[in-house]
């Protein structure tokens, strides 16, 4: 009901205000379209076109039959959705659901671990202390190492006679099927990408004004309350973007399990690896079908994440006018209030 009031107001002002801005808008719109068209063309060429080609490819098969001389019959045949339905049949179906489970499992476990560790790293990096530069640099080193290289490093660590077994005093064969290979992938992925979340959260932390903390301190808020009621809400926009990026990235995970554990291992096979395997054996139709399914899965997860948690990916909230009820603005206003409330709570407890 509150929203209807400003809408109702507008028509009354229209004769007075609308003409000039409208003309202005029209002119800018055309100019904007002209100025943006090269960008849109490039985007169309490098984003839209490949997606459409991949979708088209997924409806064809080729190279499946041999002629009398043992040569592969050339040309591709339109098979409709058969490449998609084949994925869910029999052995392939079993393999697909296993890969879908692995992909989801890695995403959930890795992102949760990385978020916890990343936030902790950011808090440490944010503190002013001697040697902060060294700590910041050393925390960021894993993120700077290419995934394949870090996978090789961890492969070395997880060898049968590697340092992991020596330190743990165990004889675990990490690259064999089972929980241990899953664990090795999770450890290596967390090691590598927790700093990424740490980096983005650190950027978010640096935008929190010091006065807010001072106010909380004056009010006698505990460290935990300060963290949960001030730091977390204020860093949330940055944190959600970081987590979203990590989710999208981990859903496509390929190089780490492929190099660290190896191809065709049920325990760590992910959807990207299935698509790769098909393409490697020159079955581009089914490969495109797998890739499309993964694309849809990633898109749905990203959409749900943005909708449910309100991750502000494109800076929408900040771009809104002060009166428009931008989320970030609102939070900035409420956080001190919350902290004040928290402070009084603790004060009462004492």
């Amino acid at each position, binding site marked *: 009901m509150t929203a209807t009031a400003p809408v109702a107001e507008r028509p009354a002002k229209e004769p007075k205000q609308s003409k000039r801005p409208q003309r202005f808008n029209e002119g800018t719109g055309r100019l904007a379209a002209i100025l943006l068209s090269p960008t849109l063309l490039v985007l169309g060429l490098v984003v839209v076109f490949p997606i459409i080609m991949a979708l088209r490819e997924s409806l064809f098969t080729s190279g499946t039959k*041999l002629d009398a*001389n043992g*040569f592969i019959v050339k040309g591709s045949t339109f098979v409709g959705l058969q490449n998609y339905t084949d994925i869910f049949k029999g052995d392939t179906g079993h393999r697909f659901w296993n890969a879908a489970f692995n992909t989801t499992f890695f995403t959930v476990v890795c992102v949760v671990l990385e978020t916890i560790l990343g936030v902790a790293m950011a808090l440490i990096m944010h503190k002013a202390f001697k040697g902060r530069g060294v700590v910041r640099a050393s925390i960021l080193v894993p993120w700077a190492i290419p995934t394949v290289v870090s996978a090789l490093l961890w492969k070395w660590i997880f060898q*049968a006679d590697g340092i992991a077994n020596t330190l743990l005093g165990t004889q675990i*064969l990490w690259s064999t099927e089972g929980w241990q290979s899953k664990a090795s992938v999770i450890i290596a992925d967390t090691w590598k990408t927790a700093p990424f979340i740490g980096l983005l959260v650190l950027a978010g932390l640096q935008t929190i004004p010091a006065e807010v903390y001072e106010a909380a301190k004056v009010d006698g808020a505990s460290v935990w309350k300060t963290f949960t009621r001030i730091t977390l809400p204020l860093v949330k926009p940055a944190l959600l973007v970081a987590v979203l990026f990590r989710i999208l990235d981990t859903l496509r995970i390929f190089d780490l399990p492929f190099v660290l554990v190896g191809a*065709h291992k049920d325990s760590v096979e992910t959807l990207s690896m299935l698509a790769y395997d098909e393409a490697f*054996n020159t079955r581009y139709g089914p490969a495109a079908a797998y890739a499309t399914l993964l694309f849809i899965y990633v898109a749905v997860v990203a959409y749900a994440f943005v909708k449910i948690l309100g991750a502000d990916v494109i800076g929408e909230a900040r771009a809104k006018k002060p009166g428009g009820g931008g989320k970030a603005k609102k939070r900035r206003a409420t956080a001190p209030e919350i902290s004040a409330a928290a402070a009084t709570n603790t004060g009462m407890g004492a």
Partner: protein
Amino acid sequence: MAVASSLALLATACGSGDDGSSSGGGSSAGALEGRGPITLAGGKDTSGNLQNQLNAWNAQHPNEKVELKELPEDADAQRQQMVQNAQNKSDAFSVLNMDVVWTSEFAANQWITQIPEDKVPDLGKLIPATVDTAKYRDKLYGVPITSDGGLLYYRKDLLTKAGIAEAPKTWDEMLADCQKVAALPEAKGMSCYAGQFEKYEGLTVNFSEAVNSAGGVIVDKDGKPNVNTPEALAGLQELTNGFKTGAIPKAAITYKEEESRRAFQEGKLLFLRNWPYVYAKAEATDGSSKVAGKFAVAPLPGKTGPGVSSLGGHDYAISAFAKNKATAIDFINFMASEARQKANIEKTSQAPTWASLYDDPTLTKQFPYLAPLKASILAAQPRPKVVKYGDVTAAIQQAAYDALSGKTQPQQALSDLQTKLQSLITQ
């Protein structure tokens, strides 16, 4: 004259733009013509000697120079680039340095040109098993340039100490030797045997060797899968029993070539199946190997007699989309010649395909493993020659890995594999 005119006829037939399914294998057979610069595409030349070989050719043929196109070191990445090149019908690659297991796939897709056997005068001098790797449906598609065979590395010092004079020829002898050596104090903490049992191409090699050495086959001579047999079972059980009894260390399920080599060099293994490249590394006296001077090599053991190795190595083939194919075949013949192969092994220790080189006194002195390697390669079997090699080797690895890790019983693994191969290999 007749040959020349028929060549011209065939060339025009080919040039008439028949891009669809070509009707016969013969259509591309005669079209080895055109002279001029060509390229050689192959994996990264880690030895650095290949350029010397090309320089020798280029000095003699200033108008038909060969340029080296280095592809990544990883074999899968090499194949991927060659496939891509063929699908674009690009003439960027003229001669392809191909792994022996790719022949069927490339030939069936008509990505490589059939080579008439009379165009390769030295063919009869090459080891027959290596020439066979370059054939698809009895037609020649390449010339073998290097070969490779499995060898049994063994600790001669410990065998001598246990009173054993000769390397074992059968699996039973090998296990019996292990028992005798195990009684020695030096053998404490050692395992009997290892090969490469990680889930990758090496497992296909080791599984094929076990099956072939027991008299079984994976794919028979007519190209039909026939792996669900008592012979194949006996071969697989030799490996699964090895894991069960501890003759093969548990960690061997994670071994590739390098892991198994290190285990042998650290003195953890009495017997090791590996390729010839290990010899120089294990013989190194810079302290990296604890077994330098203490080991020797022999052909692989089998069930009742000498074992059967899987064949490695590389063939040179001509891309179907290449220009200057006449130069290409001349260049291949040049590289396959005795002189070039000898120059190559001297510098790179890559096993030649020219039979007589294995008996060359200077070479056998430089490479003491040549005699057992010759025996290994002479008796070797190619891995399954199938069009869908990528799928077939994945299926073999799945079955063997599940059996070795105890997930499925050997009998079950083989019958599953047979079913899978039947669906993959349809004629």
